Every structure is written in structure tokens, then in C-alpha cells.
């Protein structure tokens, strides 16, 4: 079972790279949704069945795979944007940076003092790699909506790390974190709408210029 989990984690890391390489917003929203669904399946593979587990799985797939992507694509439709134009760093350099970060996270995970049963699994490197990819997306993309996606990827990374502790993690904490995220996405959606209405663009780099009426 942990073998299958490893393959899924490799898929998660590949989705990270896809997200760094693509220029289409709708595509990256779908990618992040797929990543969420994979993360929802993962707990079921590494822990024995329980109702707590089934609840977590259903909740994760619903929130990360359906609700949040739905909100984001709604915001995309309202703000009428189709693709990210010229990120701060080009697509190939970010892709390479993402690959370097993934390699570094493997190297870093080797150094961490992990519990012996977690040593050989891909969870820790995958979580650090996903976290760093989220940072990269947050910092290199111009559009507010891409930054929201970066934020989501980052949260996915944290979630992968948390998977190692699912046993110890009470449902309430899990639900609280998800609720936070949902509210965050909600607020971001509203903010994006406002930005696009006020500035007729959601390019965040334009927010630095002063606007005088």
C-alpha cells in the first residue's frame, strides 16, 4: 500500500512541475483540483480504515477537489481572464527552479531526524517540494488569481506533511484548517473581484503605483 502511496506522491510532485510550466489558468486550476483529489485518496492508503478516516477523505476530496476549484474558476470567469501574461520570471526558468527545489527537498529530507517508519517514504520530500512550489508560484506570478493557486499548492504541501500524523490529528483541527483555507479563498475571490473592478486588471504589480482621482 505504501508503494502505491509513493507513486501517487510522485504524481503530486509532477503536478507541481506542470503547474509551474503551464500558462493557462483554467489548466492550473484543474491541476490543483486533481492534486487535491490525490491528497484525499492518500490517507486511506497508509492508515487502516476508520470512520474518522472516511470523514477526512470525503471532506478533503469535497473541499480541495470540488468546492475550492469551483470558487476559483468562478472568480476567473467573473474577472474574465484566460491566461497569465508574462510572469515575473519566465516559464522555463521557474520550471528549472522548481526542479532544483524538488531536488533540494529530497536532499533536505535525508537530513531530517525522522521516525524510522517514515524514513523510506516519499512523504517528507514531497511535502517540502510542494511547499516550495507553492512559494515559487506565489512569488513569481503576476496575477492575483495565480497567487491564490500558489497559496493552495502551499497548503497541499502542509497537508502532505500532516498525513504522517493523521492518527494523532483530531477531526476538529483538520476541519478548522480547511475552514480557514475556504474562508481565505472566499476573501481572495472577493478581493480579486474588487481589484479587477477598480483597476480593470488583476495584475498585482500595478497595485504599487499610486492612484490619484
Amino acid at each position: 500500500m505504501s508503494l502505491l502511496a509513493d507513486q501517487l506522491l510522485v504524481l503530486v510532485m509532477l503536478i507541481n512541475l506542470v503547474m509551474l510550466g503551464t500558462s493557462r489558468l483554467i489548466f492550473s486550476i484543474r491541476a490543483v483540483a486533481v492534486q487535491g483529489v490525490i491528497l484525499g485518496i492518500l490517507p486511506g492508503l497508509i492508515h487502516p480504515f476508520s470512520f474518522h478516516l472516511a470523514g477526512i477523505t470525503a471532506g478533503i476530496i469535497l473541499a480541495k477537489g470540488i468546492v475550492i476549484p469551483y470558487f476559483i474558476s468562478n472568480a476567473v470567469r467573473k474577472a474574465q481572464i484566460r491566461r497569465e501574461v508574462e510572469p515575473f520570471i519566465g516559464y522555463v526558468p521557474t520550471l528549472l527552479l522548481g526542479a532544483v527545489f524538488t531536488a533540494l527537498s529530497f536532499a533536505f529530507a535525508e537530513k531530517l531526524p525522522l521516525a524510522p517508519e517514515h524514513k523510506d517514504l516519499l512523504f517528507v520530500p514531497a511535502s517540502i517540494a510542494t511547499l516550495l512550489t507553492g512559494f515559487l508560484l506565489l512569488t513569481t506570478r503576476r496575477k492575483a488569481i495565480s497567487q491564490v493557486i500558489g497559496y493552495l499548492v502551499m497548503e497541499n504541501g502542509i497537508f502532505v506533511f500532516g498525513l504522517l500524523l493523521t492518527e494523532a490529528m483530531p477531526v476538529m483541527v483538520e476541519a478548522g484548517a480547511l475552514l480557514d483555507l475556504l474562508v481565505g479563498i472566499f476573501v481572495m475571490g472577493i478581493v480579486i473581484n474588487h481589484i479587477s473592478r477598480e483597476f480593470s486588471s488583476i495584475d498585482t504589480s500595478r497595485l504599487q503605483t499610486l492612484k490619484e482621482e
Partner: protein
Amino acid sequence: MTDIIIHCAVALLFPPLLLGVIGKTKAAFAGRVGAPYFQPYYDLIKLFRKGSVFSETTTWVFRAGPVVTLSATLIACLLIPLGRHAAPISFSGDLILFAYLFGLSRFFTTIAALDTGSSFEGMGAAREVTFSCLAEPTLFFTLITLARMSKSITLSTILTHPTPATWFAAGASMLLLVGALFIILLAENCRIPFDDPNTHLELTMIHEVMVLDHSGPAFGIILYGAALKLFVLGAVFVNVALPIATGNALADWAIFIVAILALAVTIGIVESVMARLRLVRIPQLLVGATILSAFAMMLVLR
């Protein structure tokens, strides 16, 4: 001994059929009848019977180009194992020779193109070397990963090492390797997402533009060399992607032939359903392939 004879016979006679199969697949997708399967053979025979025209401005380099290209590819095809049988020539470290035989053949193709003095062919040569220098790391990462898996640096061992058990144990990295190898196969052979072998629209072509000045037998050699290169890289791909060994020598040959024909059909399907990429997107895809193979190596090294 029989295996070596079959190896040489298959490698020498089989490659143009792959082009025929690809053409037929594309025709089937377009709803046409298409040229017969053996059309590439007829084309080659026709070209070898023709006379050649050499421009006065060209030197011996231009004439050496096709010959060196073909001979380098022929040597490369003696180095790889076909259908789970050891290659006729193999020694420790031959994977470096294998990779750079392609480098040598490319060098001579481009230098022959530059020798004509046509600005047009120079442009094609520039594109070819740009893309191939992005494709080379992928080939190396893939070979290194396989070498690491099989703990050997001989191509015969490396490429016959993958078995269904390897796929179960390291499925993720094998899948990444197969993906990267397929991209390399298409890029190195100038197939569709990268270059259209049928196009004669000047500004978009890469490989085709470099051989515009060749005619007659020289052009036949180039066409045959291209088919052989497709066959060689296809054989590498099949060895990794479909690691089935029955133990019976003849059955293995049959499986290999069927697999490589299936690969040709797959290439035909890819060419039918995909459009050519814009030139600026090509490096992106090649870098993506490099990352895939590097990632596979990381997973294996861990």
C-alpha cells in the same frame, strides 16, 4: 550466431517499413487509403538509381555528410540489444559512444548543410543544434538512471535489465523514463510536435531544410539513415517500455517486431492528433523532458 545474423538483417531491412506504417496510420486517420507500406523502399530504390548533382561551391564535407551520418547510425544500431538479445558489439561504457555517435552524425549533417553556403540551410542547422543540445541531457539522464538500476555501464546489460518486476518495484521512475524517452524519440527523429518530416514550407522546418541540396543516392542515404535512427531509438524505447522476455529466442524476436510496429502506429497517432508546436514552445517541452528524466534519476538514487 543466428541472433547476430537476425540482428543485422532486421536492422538493415526493417527500418523503412516503420516509415511506411507511420504514413499508413496517418492516412487512416485522415480517411485516405495512403501509400503502400513498402513505399519508402520504392522511394529508396528510385533515389539510388538517380544521378547526383553537386553544387560547385561545395567541398568534400558536403559529400561526406550523408555517408558519415549513415555509418555512425549503423554502428549505433550494432550497439543496442534488439528483442532481449545481446548486441553484436558491446563493451563497458559503450553508452557514451552510443550517445555521441548520434552527436557525430548530427555534426556532419549540420556541417554539410553549412557547406552549401545557403543561408536557408544555415538556419535549419542552427535550429537543429539548438534543439539537440537541449535533448541530449535527457538521453544521458535516462541512460544513467537505467545504468544505476542495472549496476552496469554496458548498453546490452542496461537495456535488457528492465523486467516486469522492475516495473512493479519502481513503477514511477520507469514511467517517467518512458515518458522522457518518447519525447526524445520524437524530437531526435524530427517527428511532429517538434518538426514535420513532410513539410516543405521553408520557415518552419528543421531537419528537412538541411538536406535540401542533396539529391539522388546521397538523399537516399539520408532518408535511409533517418529511418535507421528511428529504428534504433525505437528499439531503445521498446526495450525499456515493454520488458517481456519469453526465453524462446524466436518468440522474443517476434515480440520485438510487433512492439516496434506498435510503436510506429503510436507515433502515427501522435502525429495525427497533435499539431506542430510553435518554435518557442519546443525548448519548453525539451526542458520538461529533461526534468522528467532527472526526476526519475533522483527517485532511483534515493
